[in-house]
């Protein structure tokens, strides 16, 4: 991309906080404000505040909005109740994953699709191409929203101080319109950290006021601003896939161990949806003869496996590839997610190594996630 990176409505705030910025999917985003390890641990134990305004919002409205999304996406979107959200995917006709999405049903005939920044245009184009014949309208709302996230065990208390909305009644993967610190927001109980938390979709013009109000309200609870670096280690510990790493057009949801998001029993469009035939075949293959499985790798040493590193046996035989890896602040040792040949993918499999720049470092195969919060 040769264009100058885009800046969010909170750009000046990040710079005033001394953030280290990074280019991410064409956006200039905060990577970290201080130590990414401290930011990570703050979200695990207290609360963190994120600017996620790079995420891509697409609104779908109309009498056949549900039918269109049932056809264009792999999930049962018509079955999502108003005020609830669903994790889903959009696939190619051949079954490859174009993106993973969260779809919020805002009203009977209105949905908001949230795509990864790197894929927002792809998703918009695919939805538009698949909308023919449906009585539904697709609106590019990427510039209509800023997105702030408050994540961590203290986040309900912090938000409660700023809103009259019924947060106790707001379940995980639900969203409701409300007012937070005098700002109109869609309040969603969603996140990408493995903790309880909220995502607040607001007008860009309100983003700074909301950020400041949340910062003030969270001060005593230990809320800190958090960058994308700790967001990545938080989601990695929580075993959540990241597009471009675990998910690509070369993988189907079944390859990624996420076949549950594909719903073949749809009632709309006579059960048809884009990718159906290929995904049915992928489901069968994953059941009968899976080529590789997505597993966790837990380091015995201190060297960090990175995306693209080969998973090998002691004799050097390649049995897989790391898709994400980082030092885990919670576990105090490096962890990775990797695609590994099914024969070596069972938790506890011994003799598995990662080739770290020529040296074979031993790893333990584990089930995902690495971290699960106590409820």
């Amino acid at each position, binding site marked *: 991309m040769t264009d100058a990176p885009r800046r969010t409505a909170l750009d000046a705030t990040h710079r005033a906080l001394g953030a280290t910025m990074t280019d991410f999917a064409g956006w200039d985003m905060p990577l970290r404000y201080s130590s990414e390890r401290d930011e990570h641990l703050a979200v695990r134990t207290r609360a963190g505040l994120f600017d996620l305004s790079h995420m891509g919002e697409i609104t779908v409205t109309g009498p056949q909005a549900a039918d269109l999304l049932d056809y264009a996406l792999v999930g049962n979107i018509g079955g999502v109740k108003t005020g609830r959200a669903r994790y889903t995917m959009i696939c190619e006709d051949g079954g490859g994953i174009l993106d993973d999405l969260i779809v919020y049903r805002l009203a009977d005939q209105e949905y908001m699709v949230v795509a990864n920044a790197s894929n927002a245009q792809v998703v918009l184009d695919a939805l538009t191409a698949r909308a023919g014949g449906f009585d539904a309208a697709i609106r590019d709302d990427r510039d209509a929203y800023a997105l702030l996230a408050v994540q961590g065990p203290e986040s309900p208390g912090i938000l409660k101080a700023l809103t009259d909305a019924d947060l106790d009644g707001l379940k995980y993967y639900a969203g409701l319109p409300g007012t937070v610190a005098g700002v109109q927001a869609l309040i969603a109980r969603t996140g990408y950290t493995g903790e309880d938390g909220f995502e607040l979709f607001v007008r860009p013009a309100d983003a700074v006021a909301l950020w400041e109000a949340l910062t003030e309200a969270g001060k005593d609870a230990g809320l800190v601003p958090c960058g994308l670096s700790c967001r990545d280690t938080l989601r990695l510990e929580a075993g959540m896939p990241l597009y471009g790493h675990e998910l690509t057009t070369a993988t189907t949801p079944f390859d990624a161990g996420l076949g549950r998001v594909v719903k073949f029993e749809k009632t709309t469009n006579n059960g048809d949806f884009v990718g159906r035939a290929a995904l049915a075949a992928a489901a069968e293959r994953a059941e009968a003869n899976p080529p590789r499985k997505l597993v966790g790798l837990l380091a015995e040493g201190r*060297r960090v496996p990175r995306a693209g590193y080969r998973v090998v046996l002691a004799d050097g035989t390649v049995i897989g590839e790391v898709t994400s890896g980082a030092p885990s602040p919670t576990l105090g040792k490096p962890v990775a997610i990797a695609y590994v040949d099914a024969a070596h993918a069972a938790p506890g499999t011994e003799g598995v190594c990662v080739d770290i720049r020529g040296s074979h470092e031993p790893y333990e195969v584990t089930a995902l996630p690495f971290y699960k919060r106590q409820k």
Partner: protein
Amino acid sequence: MSNPQQLRYSKEHEWLSGAEEGVSTVGITEHAANALGDVVFVQLPEVGATVAAGETCGELESTKSVSDLYSPVDGEIAEINEDVVNDPSLVNSAPFEGGWLFKVKTSGEPAELLSADEYAAFIQS
């Protein structure tokens, strides 16, 4: 941030102390430590190993990346900082002090090492 005046600096962001009985201390600069983020693993050369100016002699691993460590001078490794091996975060918290990496008995030194002011200008450019 300020780079101590008494040190000299390489364009690979290492600092070098003045020699005491032919032995200089080497570390990475605060600028480099900030750019890396939290350092989680440090691999240092072995005591007795020969190093050459501008050649890699170890690595520094942070949350997001791994970077080669270069020696700013020719010489032989006299001592390594075991504290930083055990607690790599010292590189971030005290890059010019407790986060030093190794001591080297210098046998030759490139002409292009920078003064503190020259290094400050270099990282601004």
